């Protein structure tokens, strides 16, 4: 069972997405801000991270930069989630090291497709 870390500050969004992912059979751990996300990635060693970009204390771009800069976490795929498709957000997310990118509202089949593709690629590399 794949483990997903969801870093999201909005409580309802966190609740909604984690429940939908759990229904699809993923184990979900959550963090509510940037530093919490970085710490949880180290502590839980998730297979994939869903990272909201507008986070308090440390935004998603910077949190991703730190995760991708640390040997222990740099292999974990990160999918950026942004509230609305601002022009340039996608470039900024990829620049920060995110592996993929999705916008809210989440269309679950689309997001699941991205998650599965990244997990397959990461699993392939590790074998």
């Amino acid at each position: 069972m794949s483990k997903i870390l969801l870093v999201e500050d909005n409580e309802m969004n966190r609740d909604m997405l984690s429940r939908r992912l759990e229904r699809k059979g993923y184990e979900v751990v959550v963090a509510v801000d940037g530093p919490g996300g970085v710490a949880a990635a180290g502590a839980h060693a998730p297979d994939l991270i869903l990272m909201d970009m507008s986070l308090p204390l440390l935004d998603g771009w910077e949190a991703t930069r730190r995760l991708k800069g640390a040997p222990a976490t740099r292999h974990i795929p990160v999918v950026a989630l942004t509230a609305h498709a601002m022009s340039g957000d996608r470039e900024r997310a990829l620049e920060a090291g995110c592996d993929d990118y999705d916008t809210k509202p989440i269309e679950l089949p689309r997001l699941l497709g991205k998650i599965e593709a990244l997990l397959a690629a990461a699993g392939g590399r590790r074998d």
Partner: protein
Amino acid sequence: MTDGPPPPDGGAGPRALPPQLMHDLRTPLTQIIGYSELVAEEAEAAGHGAFAPDLRKVSAAGYRLLALLDEHFRAEPALETEPAGPTTLAAFIGANRETILAEWEAFARTCAPAGGVMDIAALRDHAGELLTAIAAELGTPRGGPERSERSKGHAPAAFGGGATAAEAHGAERAESGFTVGQMVAEYRALRASVIRLWMQSRRETTPADLEDLARFNEAVDLALAESIAQYTHDLDRSKEMFLAVLGHDLRTPLTAIAASARFVLGTQALEEPSLGLVSRIVRSSARMDHMVRDLLDFTRSRLGGGISLARADASAAAVVREVADEVRAAHPERALEVEAEGEPRGEWDAARISQALTNLVVNAVEHGSGEAPVRIGVAGDGEEVTVTIHNRGPAIPASRIDGIFNPMKGRNGGSSAADGPSGSLGLGLYIAERIVSAHGGRIDVASSDAEGTTFTVRLPRRPPAAR
């Protein structure tokens, strides 16, 4: 709202909303969509599939609302704020240059003159440099020696040893055909854009913010003052350049008139009244040539070229006699007396000295009393040769002695020797003073009703370096 520049897209297209408001509107909609889909999934899993179609309708309605929002509104470009909390205005400007410049450029385009030489890329570069300079100004400690000098208008050259960014901006605007009013409007727009965007990024205003704002306004005012000074300087310069070209073009036909008239006189075939009339053409064209030459010298000296000298051994007494002969020819009705004593020789540009003395003697003839002669004295004394030009007549008021050599000083009527010759631009005294100064000398003026008016020219015999 009237103070702010219009949004970049004007009225067309989706209306801009602050990013936070756009976010706050979308978030509950995405939650309605997400939860209705989640509940539909759970209802189906729990065997309550009958609810699912209605829940999908809730989610579809949510998507429709989102689509409407996206169709009619868009988020303004996001503002960079430091995640760790408050930031300084200088840091804010640094982080949001592009957003500020985009707003400002949209405004600048609305006031660009029709048919002007506008280069939008250059315009933006200047604005960017201005913004950098202003941000740097914000970063300088307040009350430092440099700042206080700048606020008094003594700006150091901050950019590459040349003009400041603001000066470059003023020069560019003068060239592009902007009016001063349009340039001031640009600065207003820059100020308004920065303040509006900054205030929008602040949750609350602190005393440090107010301090920053005051300093920002001061920096904008300084830049504006520098731009205007450069703008007016450049405009003056182009006017004087025009005069210089005009003066040159005037002399060409004048030279032809004078040469032709002298040729006709030289044939000695003329009788009165033709002889007198052609002589008048020679005298008048010579005088006009003199005036045009003064005008050329005036513009050249104002353009920074100064008066050029070709020094050679010369006699002040000889120059004075030639000048007296020329003026007598032009004014046969007036008496001129010349007295010379002492050693009259020195290293001067004789043609220039002749021009200066002619201006002074003509001035004395035109403004002195017609009943008494104009007396010209030459006295050699040690290191200097002194030439005095004296005329009787009403005194020059004391209030006009100061600045008598300044052509910009108002000359309103009157008949004293401070007034320019009738019909002239009044440049004669100015040119005389420039020429004497170029020789390292000076001209003094004394005037009273009892004694008349005396201009005293002191000429060192040698250039300053050679003495």
